[in-house]
């Protein structure tokens, strides 16, 4: 057995696979398939200061090798999360990451402060949700706004801080540097790519929100490229995500520069994907005589 453990900003993960925010709820449902301790970690459903109902349906549309979604951050609010979900989650033997999204600086700071006094292991700043009218991605699309929100939250955040980046930008490497310069302990990328599908008979967008976020295998090459670009620009660890569906994808993303990985959409076709991917990574490491998964991180041999 190869060593699958990874360390992201001082937090120890028993393997590099983290369930991606929004695909895994608060873990309750998937714990009916397997013990959550099989996962390196869970990035919980994005939470906001108050309960949110989310967008009207339809919230999902299938696309070639992917899906569009626009859930709109339906969640019970940060206080409910801490009181009702976290006590159970923190006993599961896996790293718990709280994913937070707000409309204002104060929203993010308030949640970071509350969560800093809770059992969560890390806080992931969601400044990249494309499916809410106010807030979210507005903080994530320029270097200045990313620097400002990271700077604002940093004093309130006593836990390791991950900034989750939007791919809907012209230069993701500069954005990542802005987060790093204001004290982010890690970055995670990519969130979904804004997309759209239209029903040709009704001429209506399939998703009620009109646009949605594209995820799944379709976005994997974009994610690999962006993780590689960010790895060249920052020193903080990268949590890579975006369409990882197989162990080969996982290995590829690590080689591109990721220290840990999040997987989401593949869970919908195969709830057991995290376990299979870990097994596949382990077999690859053993076959190639590599002792630790972390040796893969950034091991790309780029063409000069």
């Amino acid at each position, binding site marked *: 057995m190869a060593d699958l453990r990874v360390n992201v900003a001082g937090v120890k993960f028993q393997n590099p696979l983290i369930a991606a925010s*929004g*695909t*895994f*709820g608060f873990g*309750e*449902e*998937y714990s*009916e*398939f*397997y013990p959550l301790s099989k996962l390196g970690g869970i990035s919980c*459903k994005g939470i906001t200061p108050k309960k949110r*109902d*989310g*967008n*009207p*349906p*339809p*919230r*999902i*549309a*299938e*696309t070639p*090798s*992917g*899906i569009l*979604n626009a*859930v709109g951050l*339906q969640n019970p609010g940060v206080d409910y999360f801490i009181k009702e979900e976290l006590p159970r989650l923190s006993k599961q033997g896996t790293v718990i990451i709280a994913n937070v999204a707000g409309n204002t600086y104060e929203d993010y700071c308030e949640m970071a402060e509350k969560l800093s006094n809770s059992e969560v292991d890390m806080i992931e700043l969601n400044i990249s949700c494309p499916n809410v009218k106010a807030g979210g991605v507005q903080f994530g699309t320029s270097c200045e706004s990313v620097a400002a929100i990271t700077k604002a939250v940093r004093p309130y955040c006593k836990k390791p801080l991950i900034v989750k980046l939007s791919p809907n930008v012209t230069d993701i490497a500069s954005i990542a540097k802005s987060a790093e310069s204001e004290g982010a302990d890690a970055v995670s990328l990519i969130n979904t790519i804004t997309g759209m599908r239209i029903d040709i008979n009704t001429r209506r967008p*399939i998703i009620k929100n009109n646009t949605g976020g594209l995820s*799944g*295998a379709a976005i994997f090459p974009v994610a690999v490229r962006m993780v590689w670009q960010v790895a060249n620009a920052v020193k903080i660890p990268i949590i890579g995500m975006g369409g990882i569906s197989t162990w080969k994808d996982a290995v590829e993303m690590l080689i591109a520069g990721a220290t840990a990985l999040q997987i989401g*959409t593949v*869970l*919908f*076709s*195969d*709830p*057991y994907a995290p376990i299979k991917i870990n097994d596949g990574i382990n077999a690859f490491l053993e076959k190639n005589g590599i002792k630790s998964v972390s040796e893969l991180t950034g091991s790309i041999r780029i063409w000069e």
Partner: protein
Amino acid sequence: MKYDTALCRLVEKKEIAKGFFDFRVQNTDLMNNALPGQFVHILVPGKTLRRPISICDVENGCMRLVFEIRGEGTDILSQMKVGDDLDILGPLGTGFKIEKGKKYAFVGGGIGTPPLLYAAKQADTAIAVLGFRSSDAIILKEDFEKACSKVYLTTDDGSAGHHGFVTDPLSEIIGEVDEVCACGPTPMLKAIALIAQKNAKPCQISMEERMGCGVGACLVCACKTKINNVEGYSHVCKAGPVFRAEEVVF
């Protein structure tokens, strides 16, 4: 562990009306746990999302799944061959609650009729009201005739049975039954819920929405509900697909 996926052998396949397929799949664990009104989530080769298909019946060692080709996914599914294995996640969701000694009306529209069959078979007394577009889209009529004391048939174009909607026969018989269970297009369910409400009869309706994970984690299959006076979105895959009619905000 409550959820699992299983490979289920397709042992029988029929096209029971144009574009409507009747699959029988074998898997003992899956069948033994299935409740009327629940669904299974089927992996479709080459597709990112599974397809939710209602459980039509469990009999003779097989689970019966009846579906209509609606798009690419169900088209691929319809091309599966006898002897193929289907990767099935389920049974999932909250189904119909059928109580002993009660007389039920099962009201189905089109591809909404299959999930009512297993429920009708478990009811002590059942009447069915089945509505279809036209005579060539009629499915499961004989099965409901076996399971129910009476079957009312309607077609939109009058090519078979009563010319009109299921609400016509339902309005006539509602006084005879204790409870209504319905599945079909949303406007039909809304009309049925109203008839049940006017006649002070409890009513359970099976809802449909585009679905992701199928287990309640991803929150995409939202259905507007009012439960305990709180309005919000419930999810068809876990809280549903069957809701009490008064809980659904149309």
